[in-house]
């Protein structure tokens, strides 16, 4: 009986085996890359808004404090989005004819609410609290990035659980003095030593920070 397969079939079979491994790896790799890519994480993608609000202009250009608009950041879980009234404290006087701000003026006049596209959010089963982070020396910039350089706002970090846990397990890598929390450009040369000091000072129970119940309820 003649051979069904020729000699070179062996090579094809071996190459096939290698190809299966490589292909599986490649698919996995692509999936991984997609998962961590901005397409999935929405990181670094400026989110369009009805009114193209620029943090760069307001924070860097004008030097407004975060808390001027995000009033409840020290008191509540939610940092607060300014009501139309807050915008109009200035914009009834300056740029009060600008077509860019027409939706804001309309909101004020018709008593309809402005709608912003949300930039940073966690899933419904995660309960993040701004006040406790701010009180314990987590700076705005640590999570939200260099907002003073964002013409349109984008998400700076994935906000994935692994990212949260990095700080919850090693807060000393990130905490800063309480009075520097709202300073977007604060730096230190000796973060770890200062961090350890601050963790003690803030009375942060690092062990407890990785309990499930810290964020999930």
């Amino acid at each position: 009986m003649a051979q069904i397969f020729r000699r070179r079939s062996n090579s094809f079979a071996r190459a096939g085996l290698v190809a299966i491994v490589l292909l599986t790896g490649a698919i996995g790799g692509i999936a991984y890359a997609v998962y961590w890519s901005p397409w999935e994480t929405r990181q670094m993608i400026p989110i369009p808004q009805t009114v193209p609000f620029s943090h760069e202009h307001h924070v860097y250009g004008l030097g407004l404090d975060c808390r001027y608009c995000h009033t409840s950041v020290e008191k509540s879980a939610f940092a607060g989005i300014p009501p139309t009234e807050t915008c109009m404290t200035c914009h009834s006087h300056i740029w009060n004819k600008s077509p860019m701000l027409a939706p804001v003026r309309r909101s004020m006049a018709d008593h309809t609410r402005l709608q912003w596209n949300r930039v940073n959010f966690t899933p419904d089963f995660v309960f993040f609290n701004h006040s406790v982070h701010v009180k314990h020396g987590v700076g705005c910039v640590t999570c939200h990035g260099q907002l003073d350089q964002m013409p349109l706002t984008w998400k700076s970090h994935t906000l994935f659980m692994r990212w949260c846990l990095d700080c919850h397990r090693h807060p000393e890598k990130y905490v800063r003095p309480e009075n520097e929390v709202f300073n977007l450009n604060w730096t230190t040369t000796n973060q770890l030593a200062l961090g350890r000091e601050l963790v003690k000072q803030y009375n942060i129970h690092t062990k407890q920070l990785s309990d499930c119940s810290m964020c999930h309820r």
Partner: protein
Amino acid sequence: MTDDLRLQKDLERRKSNPQPAIRNPQSFWRSLEELSGSEKFQKSLHREFPPNASEFGNFNRRNFLKILGATVALAGLPACTKQPLQKLVPYVHQPEELVPGKPMHFATAMTLGGFATGLIAESHEGHPTKLEGNPGHPASLGATNVFHQAAILDLYDPDRSQAVLENGDPATWEEFVGAIHDAWQSQQSKNGGGLRILTETVTSPTLHFQIQQLLKKFPQAKWHQYEPVNRDNIREGAKLAFGESVESHYHFDKAKIILSLDSDFLYSHPNAVRYANDFSEKRRAKFPQTEMNRLYAIESTPTLTGANADHRLPVSSAEIENLAFALAEKLGAISKPESGNSKHQNWISVVADDLSQHRGAGIVIVGENQPARVHALAHLLNHSLGNSGRTVTFTESAQANWANQTESLRELVNDLRQNSVDVLVMLGGNPVFTAPADFQFAKNLRKAKFTVHQALHVNETSKICDWHIPENHFLESWSDARAFDGTTSIVQPLILPLYAGKSAHEILDAMLSPPGRDDYEIVREFWKSQNSGDGFEGSWHRALHDGLIESTSLPEKKVSLKQFPTDPEKQNSKSGIEITFRSDPTIYDGRFMNNGWLQELPKPINKLTWDNAALVSPSLAKRENLSNGDVVEIESENRKLEIAIWVTPGQAENSVALPFGYGRKSIGRVGVRAGFNVYELRTSSSPWIGNGAKLKKTGKTYQLVTTQIHHVIDSDERQIIREGTFDHFQKEPDFVAKDSASPVESDTLFEPKEFPYNGYKWGMVIDLSACIGCNACTIACQAENNIPVIGKEQVAAGRIMHWIRVDNYFRGPPENPQTTFQPVPCMHCENAPCEVVCPVGATMHDSEGLNVQVYNRCIGTRYCSNNCPYKVRRFNFLQYAQYDVASYRPMWNPDVTVRWRGVMEKCTYCLQRISEARITAENQNRRIRAGEFQTACQQVCPTSAIVFGDLNATDSRVAKLKTHELNYLMLGQLNTRPRTSYLAKLRNPNPKLSS
């Protein structure tokens, strides 16, 4: 498989060693099935969930493989979904006091049967999400009952009436105002002779004022009041005894001996929340435990009051009158030795002795269903025992105009019959459904020329009225109301009306002076006119803030006995059985029919859900060869009703209890087709007790669903319930610890390692002596934790979702068993059996000792619930949370995850409240103070039976109670080291009766 094997073994063992028909008389039982040792019960005992819970219904192999294939193919797809973009919608003008993300609290009040209970409503960004009791309000003291807790669901009920209707067609409020005004004009000439107003019980000073105004304008007009749960007998009894209708107030905190004659003062009295608190004041665990009150109850059907009695005597309701006279005779209050009842002679004389030994510290209280004569007799007894003025005091009624409501409605019906009613305005209520059957209200209502009905739902009455006006929920409208003791509250809305509703005030105002003002103006103007001095603004704001107007409680009134009946009414001894009518423990008079929380709440004694049933005694069932779910025909006064029966331990032998409220024809999606309409048998001549009824088996059956044998734990061998008598406890304070089985510490494969709980250490103690079994905790937990409603079929499959259940255990003969209630939440075991079996780490321990469930990790293996000896874990077998009903969304607690299909859930010790308190404390750089926050079940409990707190804080109440001699662990012998413990139940039986 292992379950089945174990069951098989157990059944074989039982077969080879048959149990006696009646087991150890000291042993507890959960249901009659258990008492008879049925196989169904054994099955239930051996499973994590009741039988059928984990099965998929009718399912063959082919379908299974199809679904399995589809599951595998589609499983990866959900991972590809990207979270959709969300919108942030800030205010235009943000209210000054509002902090986004923080709830605000407002005082308001809810009425039931007219009487107000002060509430504190929690509001998240403008939507109310939870109601709690107002600690400063005398009828609440911070607690509430099941109806108050469930009221929030009514607000968001998508089936509520949403538009003004004219003969069933949508119309506008303006059109209505025009129409009523036209109808009005014709009344001008007749002085309102054809005008009638029908309301429910009114305590609102503003509404009363408005009605007075109307009657002043139209002197011939008439105001009628009717509610099916009325207090006519109490009124007539007081009139009989004192010549005037005064309200009796009972001071259970001062009473040592209490005799209840068919009164359910712990649950269905208008002041029950307060009474339950006062009553348990002398029963709950203390240091030292020196005194305890004693409750005797005579009743025909088991109520919570009877279940909490130290001695309970089940007799038919009609016989109670004889017993009351026998007692009066024994006490020498009347001199007519006409005691025909020798059977209970001993019982009565012992009670008489006990009462007379505690003169001035006793209470005789009579239920609203007993005839006026018995009430008058009780007044006489309290008077002659010196209780009047001490434990029983009298005031005017808080009602605006306390009328005999049955007579009031009769007068209206007679006028309708004679065609003399032109305009009939009904504010609330549902008389077509609830009026006595002999009034033929529906038929007569059609004789009125112009009818208006205001209601929360388009109900039976709305359907045959010319105009229907949607009623504003009390959280949507301004009003005022008085509590049972007269304390007046302003009812403050939490939200603008969701639909085109109007309040009763607005309707009356539109009638008096069209186009009418809104209810805020009406209520405010009224109180402004009441304020003699200046400074109205200050007192108004104070009243709104406090939830009550200061010193508005009614002053005590001196009354003197005028006369009293001297011998019992001769009963024409009819053959047949007695039927008694009761308001339903969860849906009241039918008004909560469309409330899923209340429908699904197991009824306190028999744990029925979603239906009512005729409650018959075990002996009557045996005689008539009836079993649970058999449909019988009950004939009374030539009216017939087919209703399913439920064999109820403790029911009086020849008496059948019929809870009314069910069987509604016009209500929303939830309540339709549930239960039987008992009102069809209820007549004005026998509104509570009917004699000479006939009962006939029809051969049909009806599926009744009870949770009584769900989640059962073998109570006998394992000492689930510990109890003793007060006397025994005095002699042997450590009797609980003495015979508790303790765990064998070495029985573990793990290296014993102590985790130091250095921070907070949460724990709970539940005092079984204080718990009255009212279920308020179950429903408060449901409201707080977004627990879904699953429906009758799912409950029947054993999938009920409540995180805290109230088990009841019986002991003794089924004719008159002792009842013990035991609330069971998650025990938060330190050695939690559930944690070690989870393959994905979805149930974990945290550093404060909480056993936490992580929904996003859970893949639904259900190993944890299989391994939980307490059976407290609940699984979302289907998508129960109703994401698709838009109106429910603002109701959900935003601090708690809404669970989805396929995940396990259970009690979290209100983790969201712990977190909130911890964050607040940490932000202020301090520890959480003792009593700074409460769990939902603890907060609602009218008897403070549930105590929660930090075990490391030695000054906390919970830490102290953990050292009480009565403290015991449920299944502590398993070495699970539960954080929830119980205080053994103490009873205070009279030694003369217990032998």
